[in-house]
C-alpha cells in the first residue's frame, strides 16, 4: 500500500467513524487491509477500496472496523469515563431523585452492545460500590444488558473470564468480586442478580420503543459499525429511552454531535458525555 492509498482509506475511515489513524499507523492499517483484501478476493487496493466505498450492505465496513479496532472487551475499559460515571454522574442522579422524593431510589442503566458482559458487570460493581451512603434513601438498581448476538450473551451469563479480561480490575475489587477457577476467574454470582441479559437489535423499532426510563446508557464502540442513517435512528431511539436528564456514554473516538444535535454535550471533570 502506498502512502497515498493509506491516506485515502484513513480519511474515509475517519469521515465515517471518527476513528483517526495517524501516519505512524500506516503499517498497522496496511496489514489489516491486506488481510481483508485476501478475505474478499480483491487483487488491488483500488478495487477493494471502491467495493468498500460503494457497498450498500455495510458488511465489509463492519469487518474492516473490527479488524482495525481493539474489539476485545475487558473490565473497567475506558477508566476515565467510568470514574466520571461513578464519581459525578451517579451522585448527581441520586441527589436529583432524592429531591424529587423518590424512595427507594431506583437506578436503571442500559449497556447496549454488551458483548460478553464485561461492561454490565463492571457497571454492577461500580453501582454496588458507589451508591451506598450518597443519599439517605435506600437505593436499588437494575442493569439491562443487550446484544444482537446470543452466543456472547450466553458466555456473559457464565460469569467466567480470562486473565486478559480482568487485567484492569482494581486489586480490592478483584479480591472482593472474583474467585480463581483454574485458568479463569469467576465473578461473584450475586452481581448477576442486578443484570437482565437479553437479545436486542438496536435497529428494531418495536423492541427499541419498549426501552424506557433509563438514567444512563452505555453504548461504547458500537455506533462505529453503523452507517450514517442507522446511527441517527439509534441515537433517536436512545433519546426516547432515556429519562429526562439521562446520560449517554459513547466510546472515546465517537461523537454524538456528529450524529444528531438532540443531546447536550456535558464536559465533566473526568470525561465528556452527552445528556438528554
Amino acid at each position, binding site marked *: 500500500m502506498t502512502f497515498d492509498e493509506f491516506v485515502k482509506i484513513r480519511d474515509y475511515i475517519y469521515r465515517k467513524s471518527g476513528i483517526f489513524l495517524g501516519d505512524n499507523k500506516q503499517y498497522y492499517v496496511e496489514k489489516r487491509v491486506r488481510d481483508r483484501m485476501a478475505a474478499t478476493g480483491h487483487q488491488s487496493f483500488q478495487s477493494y477500496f*471502491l467495493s468498500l466505498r460503494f457497498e450498500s450492505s455495510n458488511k465489509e465496513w463492519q469487518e474492516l472496523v473490527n479488524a482495525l479496532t481493539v474489539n476485545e472487551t475487558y473490565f473497567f475499559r475506558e477508566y476515565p469515563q467510568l470514574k466520571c460515571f461513578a464519581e459525578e454522574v451517579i451522585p448527581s442522579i441520586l441527589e436529583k431523585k432524592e429531591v424529587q422524593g423518590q424512595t427507594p431510589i431506583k437506578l436503571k442503566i442500559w449497556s447496549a452492545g454488551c458483548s460478553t458482559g464485561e461492561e454490565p458487570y463492571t457497571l454492577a460493581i461500580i453501582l454496588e460500590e458507589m451508591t451506598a451512603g450518597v443519599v439517605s434513601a435506600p437505593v436499588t438498581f437494575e442493569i439491562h444488558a443487550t446484544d444482537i448476538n446470543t452466543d456472547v450473551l450466553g458466555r456473559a451469563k457464565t460469569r467466567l473470564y480470562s486473565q486478559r479480561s480482568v487485567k484492569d480490575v482494581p486489586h480490592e475489587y478483584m479480591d472482593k468480586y472474583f474467585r480463581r477457577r483454574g485458568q479463569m476467574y469467576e465473578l461473584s454470582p450475586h452481581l448477576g442478580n442486578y443484570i437482565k441479559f437479553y437479545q436486542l437489535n438496536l435497529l428494531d423499532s418495536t423492541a427499541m420503543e419498549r426501552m424506557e426510563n433509563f438514567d444512563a446508557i452505555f453504548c461504547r464502540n458500537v455506533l462505529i459499525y453503523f452507517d450514517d442513517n442507522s446511527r441517527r435512528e439509534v441515537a*433517536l431511539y436512545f433519546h426516547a429511552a432515556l429519562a429526562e436528564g439521562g446520560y449517554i456514554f459513547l466510546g472515546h473516538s465517537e461523537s454524538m454531535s456528529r450524529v444528531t444535535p438532540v443531546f447536550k454535550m456535558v464536559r465533566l471533570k473526568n470525561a465528556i458525555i452527552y445528556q438528554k
Partner: protein
Amino acid sequence: MNTDNLVIKLKEGNEKERLAALRHLEQQGDETAINALVDLLTLEHSRLVQEAAVAALIRINMPQVAEAVVQLLESTDAWVRNAAVEILQGLGETASDVVRDLLQSFDPDLRLFAVNVLGEAKYRKAVSLLQEVVNNDSNVNVVAAAVEYLGEMGSRVTDVRCLENAGRRFKDPFLHYAVDEALKKIGHM
C-alpha cells in the same frame, strides 16, 4: 386517525403527540404526509422532532421526498439546509434524478450542495455525474469539490483524463492542488 387530523396533531400537539403523529404520517407515506413532514423541518421548534422528521423522510425513501426537500436547500437556516443535504444523501439513488437536475441550477451554491450529496453516494452513477461537473461546470468551487470526491470514488482512465482536463480549464492554484491530490488518490501520480 386520518391524514388531516395527523397534520393538525403535528402542528398543535405536545412534543410526544407530535412525534407519534410523525410516525403515523411516515407509515402513510403519501404526498400529503411527505409535505407535512417536510414543512415540519422549517416550522418545528423542537430539534428532537425535526431530527425524527429527517429520519422518517429517509425511511419513506421515495423520489417525492427528494422533490419536496430540494426547495429547503435555499433556506436561510443552516440546520434546515444541512438537513436537506442529509436527506438527499440518505435517500441515495432514489434522489439521483433530483440531484442530477440540481446540477443544472443557475445558483452555484445549489450545485455545490448537489456535489456534496453525490460525494457521499453509494451508487456508481454518482461518479459519472461528478465527471460531468468536473468537465463542464463553470464555477471553480463547485469543480474543486467534485474533483475531491472524484479522487475518492474514481478509478478509470476517463476519471484521470477528466481531472487533468479540469487542471487545464482553471488557473486557480487551489484547484491545481485539488487535482494533484485527487490524481494521487486514484493512484495516477
